[in-house]
């Protein structure tokens, strides 16, 4: 019974990881930019949920919808001011521009809200659902369901709409897309905004289950990089599956080996994936070195 519970918990956690990673893989797949500030954007989402709950009494599931325009505006600003200028530039620019954004966000949060650990006081933070003797955390179940829902919507968007096809066209070949009268700059902007919205949403949904503090972004950021590398860069299905795998491994290794070493295990997986299947589960061969890939 305990094993079933662990597996369920692992899958729930995996769904959350998938939701965090979808934004990262989407941005990378289309813009070819690794967002090093991804974890810090997640942290902002968590703080949004915290303040909405503490000051406005809004439960995180209301914030999840209400804060989306804010995340979109934030994503648009970061794209306009910074990310747009790094497209097609060398590694120094691409890496350190978003590293700098991450440093600014993390420490701005530290200045504004101090380094204290905060938790959202709500009735359902540790609510559990009991089905036939099996317990499942409600906030994680919600996060899991939303992760699946959002991935499904993104998949439909990318495959069934003209806009989505334009995104995939730009991901495959920006020059030809331009020749077909696709406004690539707009596609980049929208994709980036979409990615930031995904990670902001993930932050809001995680907020009831984790302590909230400015430096929390780093560890979640690292998890999402491992998930994305495992799943295959730029692959949506890969992010989903990679999220589940990492979630399961974290919960199982946390139970059997102790929570202390779980991050060491991520890295081990990271290295193993790079050695055995560097393109990830769903990626195209060579993507990890060249940065090619197709989306969805």
């Amino acid at each position, binding site marked *: 019974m305990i094993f079933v519970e662990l597996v369920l918990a692992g899958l729930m956690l995996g769904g959350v990881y998938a939701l965090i990673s979808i934004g990262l893989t989407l941005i990378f797949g289309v813009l070819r930019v690794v967002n090093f500030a991804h974890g810090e954007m997640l942290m902002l989402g968590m703080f949004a949920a915290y303040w909405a709950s503490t000051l406005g009494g809004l439960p995180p599931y209301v914030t999840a919808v209400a804060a989306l325009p804010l995340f979109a505006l934030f994503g648009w600003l970061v794209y306009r001011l910074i990310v747009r200028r790094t497209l097609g530039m060398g*590694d120094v620019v691409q890496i350190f521009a978003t590293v700098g954004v991450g440093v600014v966000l993390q420490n701005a949060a530290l200045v504004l809200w101090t380094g204290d650990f905060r938790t959202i006081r709500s009735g359902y933070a540790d609510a559990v659902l009991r089905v036939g003797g099996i317990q499942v955390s409600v906030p994680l179940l919600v996060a899991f369901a939303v992760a699946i829902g959002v991935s499904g919507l993104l998949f439909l968007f990318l495959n069934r709409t003209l806009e989505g096809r334009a995104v995939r066209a730009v991901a495959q070949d920006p020059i030809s897309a331009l020749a077909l009268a696709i406004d690539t700059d707009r596609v980049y902007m929208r994709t980036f905004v979409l990615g930031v919205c995904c990670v902001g949403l993930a932050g809001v949904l995680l907020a009831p289950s984790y302590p909230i503090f400015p430096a929390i972004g780093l560890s979640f950021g690292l998890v999402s990089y491992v998930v994305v590398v495992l799943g295959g860069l730029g692959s949506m299905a890969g992010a989903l599956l990679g999220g589940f795998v990492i979630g399961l491994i974290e919960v199982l290794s946390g139970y059997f080996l102790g929570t202390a070493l779980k991050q060491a295990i991520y890295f081990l997986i990271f290295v193993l994936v790079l050695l055995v299947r560097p393109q990830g589960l769903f990626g195209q061969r060579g993507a990890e070195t060249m940065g090619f890939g197709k989306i969805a």
Partner: protein
Amino acid sequence: MTSTRPAVLLVVVLGLMALPLTTSNDYYLDIIVQIFLWGAAATAWNLLGGYAGQFSLGHAAFFGIGAYTSSLLLTGARVSPWLGMLAGALLAALFALVIGYLSIRLRGPFFTLSTIALTEVLQILAIHWRGLTGGSEGVSLPNAASVWTMTFDGRRTYAYVGLGFLLLAVLVSWLIERSRWGYYLVAIREEEDAARSIGVPVLGVKLGAAALSACLTAVVGTFYAQYVLWIEPAHTFSIDISIQLALMVIIGGLGTLLGPLIGASLIIPLNMFLRAWLGAAVSGLYLVIYGLVLVLVVLYARAGIVAEVQRVMRRHPVPRQSPA
């Protein structure tokens, strides 16, 4: 890449040697020690990041290995930090070779990601392997001034020891810059596939640069531990150290001999003054400024401050004679 002329280098070295004599104020001497210390570490980072174009955000790992190896040997077995420093350097180089072999085939941001993850793992190990490392509380080092324990009474002595490490790092860079190996590094940075196709042994050259860079960083880590006399995982293995090294080199000029030192000379005083000025009440604000500087420099002054100043001066030459 323009190499620095020996005459310029001589003037710089003499200037640096005179610097600690200009003040006996402990606060200013601290700034000087830190400029030498971080300048040396940034110069080490530059070997891999600047010349070879492999942007590591994991140099805190090597820094920490150096600091912990010598400190644990000193507190546990009374081994002199001078010997511990060599052990740490060797260990860091070995570590860089193993990790490098696994991750150095990754390019651009993926290499950077793997270096961040690696440092995280070391930090976790340092926190949880209490029996060896003392856990989160860290390691305190005995404060008994003697050359054998690399502990000194005055900050001026520390400044000269730090200068020694800085000059060592600069000398190594200078030798490499002028060697065939240095050209290999730059060739890899500029166009890895082209370099491979004309016969540059890419893997070996990258690994060598990683090992040497790790070695020098670990040496500075030991010196840091002996200067501060207290190390702990949360700071010694933090990504903040790695980012700071990268920031210094990027500001001063990637792949230039004196860029890292120039970057350190700008960042360290800025850091100290901001901290003193803003106070503890707004801790973190100076890091916000760091981050902004990093973003602005990579977006608008990619070649570093020195090259940008030179460029502006070339465009607007100072008139030799005042216009009549």
